């Protein structure tokens, strides 16, 4: 199979390298990823600000490594349109050292690149884990091995016009797999305001990640199952239209 790998942490990040090393044993793999770390880039694209540059680096175990000086989604769009000679059969993004669950998926470059891949009509899987020592390639090996061994299983459960979001818990037990939905968590970000010596005002994010309340665990969705030590699989669709809201909207009586 021809596989395109990408991430949000950069083309030399140990997470993507570990995944490439495992997958290239049986597949044709190419990395196209951002040159610099782009955590929280979400689905942003570089459009009218500046043009993009791509650079091909060394070849690692038959894996070509490309960097793009843009966002994670720039990498996917540019790779599919210009950089790759053949269209890949599948896009795998990650391994992200932090879980992407609940509403956080939209700020994650890893899930967003998978969404971009799906928009462009290619089966896409986003892989995230809990890695304490982010810089060590060894720490990703277990997750990378699981993805490589169970790739057929994961591909089979990826929607045709959608994304499979896979999260690994801290301790990976390959038999504990749970298909589940996204946790609906509300955001309550807190900021601290600071005035710098030049008199400019800045807002510092105090809680860097989305805080889920106790009820979030009661939903028995991805957050809950990850805590229980399960590998979670969530199929995501690209159509965000909420059919159930139509009646409420009709009742609101919005008219000219």
């Amino acid at each position: 199979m021809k596989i395109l790998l990408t991430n949000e942490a950069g083309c030399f990040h140990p997470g993507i390298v570990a995944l490439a090393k495992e997958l290239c044993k049986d597949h044709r793999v190419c990395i196209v990823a951002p040159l610099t770390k782009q955590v929280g880039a979400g689905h942003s694209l570089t459009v009218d600000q500046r043009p993009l540059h791509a650079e091909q680096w060394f070849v690692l175990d038959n894996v070509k490594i490309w960097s793009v000086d843009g966002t994670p989604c720039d990498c996917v769009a540019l790779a599919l349109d210009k950089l790759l000679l053949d269209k890949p059969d599948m896009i795998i993004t990650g391994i992200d050292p932090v879980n992407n669950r609940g509403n956080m998926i939209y700020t994650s470059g890893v899930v967003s690149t998978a969404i971009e891949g799906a928009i462009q009509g290619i089966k896409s899987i986003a892989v995230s884990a809990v890695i304490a020592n982010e810089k060590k390639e060894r720490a990703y090996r277990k997750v990378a091995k699981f993805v490589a061994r169970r790739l057929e299983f994961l591909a089979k459960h990826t929607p045709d016009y959608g994304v499979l979001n896979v999260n690994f818990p801290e301790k990976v037990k390959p038999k504990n797999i749970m298909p589940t939905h996204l946790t609906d968590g509300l955001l309550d970000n807190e900021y601290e305001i600071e005035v710098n010596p030049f008199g400019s005002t800045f807002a510092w994010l105090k809680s860097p990640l989305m805080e889920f309340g106790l009820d979030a665990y009661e939903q028995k969705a991805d957050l809950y199952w990850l805590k229980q030590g399960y590998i979670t699989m969530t199929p995501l669709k690209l159509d965000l239209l909420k059919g159930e809201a139509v009646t409420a909207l009709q009742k609101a009586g919005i008219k000219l």
Partner: protein
Amino acid sequence: MNILIANVRNLESAELKVLAGELSKKHSVTVCSLEGSARQKGNAFSYSGFPIKYKQISNYVINGTRIPAYKFQGTPADMISIMLGNIMKHRKPQLVICGISNGISLGTDVFCSSNIGMAMQAAFNNVPCIAVGVPMQLGGHKEADLLPAAQFIAKNVDKFAKAKLPTDTFLNVTIPIVKKYDDFQGVGISSMDNLTKMTRYLEKVDCKGNKYYWAQLVERDSSASADVSPTAGMSYFKKNYIIMAPLTYNSTDVAYLEQMQKEVLK
């Protein structure tokens, strides 16, 4: 009513001024905007460890009324998060209006749209929210062209705030450009799916012989694997109907999941 209007172009853009002008006649309005261009930023968020710079503008006046205004250097989602999480924490708006955006978000455009990104961020904060867009005009629209759209929003603003939509839902309102208010033909609820734009690149070579790529948005290639069918929404929109689409941030494919659970948990 306490309303927050957010825009990604700048505080002086016609899109923001027309809307704020219409709404401030009857409501208490706060405006915020980014500095410079912030197209296609989606839900990007600055987790980078740097703080977000912002400034309160003390002399922002529209139609003789002084309006609290803030300008930000950051992403659209950062801006909404700081407005709701700090600046307006103790007087939360009853409605957040994102727009008017110079450009509409159809189908999967919603994932990378800055305007929808802001609306989604407000929905995460559990504040009723609408994203408003008009068809794109390079360089921006004139205030007169945007007036009917702003009037429609102003007329229905109470209904938008009080519509009992599920908490994970926000509205994407797409408004055609018309000469006068009476030219609007009606309001419809519809999906705007499958007419999305795709990102393609224009390859060029600079004076040193290096390749570089300009992004361009093109109509979806009809050979793409997903089936393409023009929706009713778009055909009505072209006949000057205003189209509203309730969107959710919970994108779990429930039907697919149920099938998957049956197979995997067997």
